[in-house]
């Protein structure tokens, strides 16, 4: 039994937590799936490896309503989402127990996920129990942005309009995101109708712009939006374009500091007017 499984078993057996959110292999799909463990005896089934892409922080706001205390296994990126959820008072820290193994990176479609190259915290910043050694990581640059940066405006639109045109508006990107939690999404609100319901290019573009804007300065870069997209739209590009600005101009790395408000809700009298003129 690994340390993680052992701890999970202990917590469940001792009644410290009512349920534990982690991953389990499902032989039918030959893959892992987020699973809610309720018995200590099942803890041996918990897996943590490069297949565990899902951001489990997403389930916490609902689960903490249902259970008194929920344990959760978090990668570094999931932990950053959780930090922001805690800052925004979506979850009470007392109702969760965070198990934070050191993450070696995850794979999407057989290849190392792009987000992992830009990951600032391989271990969750929120951790009640840590496993493995916490590694300090260099702040890698958002490499995937480079090809966008090289393009002219027209080329960018060419690229993004092709991507947006594919969007089916299934809102998997919204649902999979731990920080997209509005009760009534702007895309669903009938009045004012900012984003039309039918799937056409301009409405799709509106959706993706608004989605990215609402995550500005909050996105923990877990990359789930891109992974969940059934059409393979590189949704994450929009987020990291903003996060690059947020990091360079406002000095913020969302989710890494538990006591720091997101940059778009804090006041910054000392920003220079030039932030409005910054170019990608």
């Amino acid at each position, binding site marked *: 039994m690994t340390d993680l499984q052992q701890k999970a078993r202990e917590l469940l057996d001792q009644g410290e937590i009512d349920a534990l959110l982690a991953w389990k292999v499902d032989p039918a799909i030959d893959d892992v799936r987020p699973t809610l463990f309720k018995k200590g005896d099942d803890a041996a089934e918990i897996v943590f490896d490069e297949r565990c892409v899902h951001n489990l922080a997403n389930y916490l706001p609902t689960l903490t309503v249902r259970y008194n205390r929920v344990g959760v296994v978090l990668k570094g990126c999931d932990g950053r989402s959780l930090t922001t959820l805690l800052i925004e008072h979506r979850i009470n820290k007392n109702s969760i127990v965070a198990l934070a193994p050191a993450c070696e990176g995850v794979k999407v479609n057989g290849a190392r996920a792009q987000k992992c190259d830009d990951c600032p915290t391989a271990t969750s910043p929120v951790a009640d129990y840590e496993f493995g050694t916490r590694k300090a990581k260099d702040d890698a640059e958002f490499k995937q942005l480079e090809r966008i940066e090289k393009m002219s405006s*027209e080329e*960018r639109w060419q690229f993004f309009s092709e991507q947006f045109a594919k969007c089916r508006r299934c809102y998997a990107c919204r649902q999979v995101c731990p920080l997209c939690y509005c009760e009534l999404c702007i895309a669903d609100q009938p009045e004012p109708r900012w984003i039309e319901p039918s799937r056409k*290019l301009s409405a799709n573009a509106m959706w993706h712009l608004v989605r990215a804007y609402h995550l500005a*300065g909050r996105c923990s870069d877990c990359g789930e939006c891109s992974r969940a997209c059934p059409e393979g739209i590189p949704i994450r590009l929009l987020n990291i374009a903003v996060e690059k*600005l947020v990091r360079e101009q406002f000095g913020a790395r969302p989710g890494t500091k538990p006591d720091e408000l997101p940059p778009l809700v804090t*006041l910054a*009298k000392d920003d220079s007017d030039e932030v409005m003129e910054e170019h990608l």
Partner: protein
Amino acid sequence: MSAPEMAKDPKILAFLCRWCSYAGADLAGTSRFSYPSNVRIVQVPCSGRVDPVMIFKAFVEGYDGVLVAGCHPGDCHYGTGNYHARRKLAVARRLLETVGVHPDRMFFTWVSAAEGRKFAEVCTTFAESLKKFAGRPKTLAREALAK
């Protein structure tokens, strides 16, 4: 589906803070400073009220350029609205730029109630600078519905 083209005579949507820039625009009018006629003005309670979704929508609806003007830093009627606006607008610009709206199609600035002349100048300069796009595709504009 090809996007419509940018106009020679650019259409501008201006979001103006009611406490300063709107009064500035008023002053420009009463002082008879001339500025381009196709600037359409939307009065907002504060530049901080300008949700980037409004800017996105303006481009989708086919405007060539979007102007946002508020009180100078430190002068906000509500204390801090324009500081928030500054960050929001920076993000809006970054997003639009990323998907291919040329950053020069947005103009964010401060205009006080006394700066009628500045308002006229801002509009004129902005409209002039938009003319360089004439004939280029109007990215993000809502495609004309297919026949």
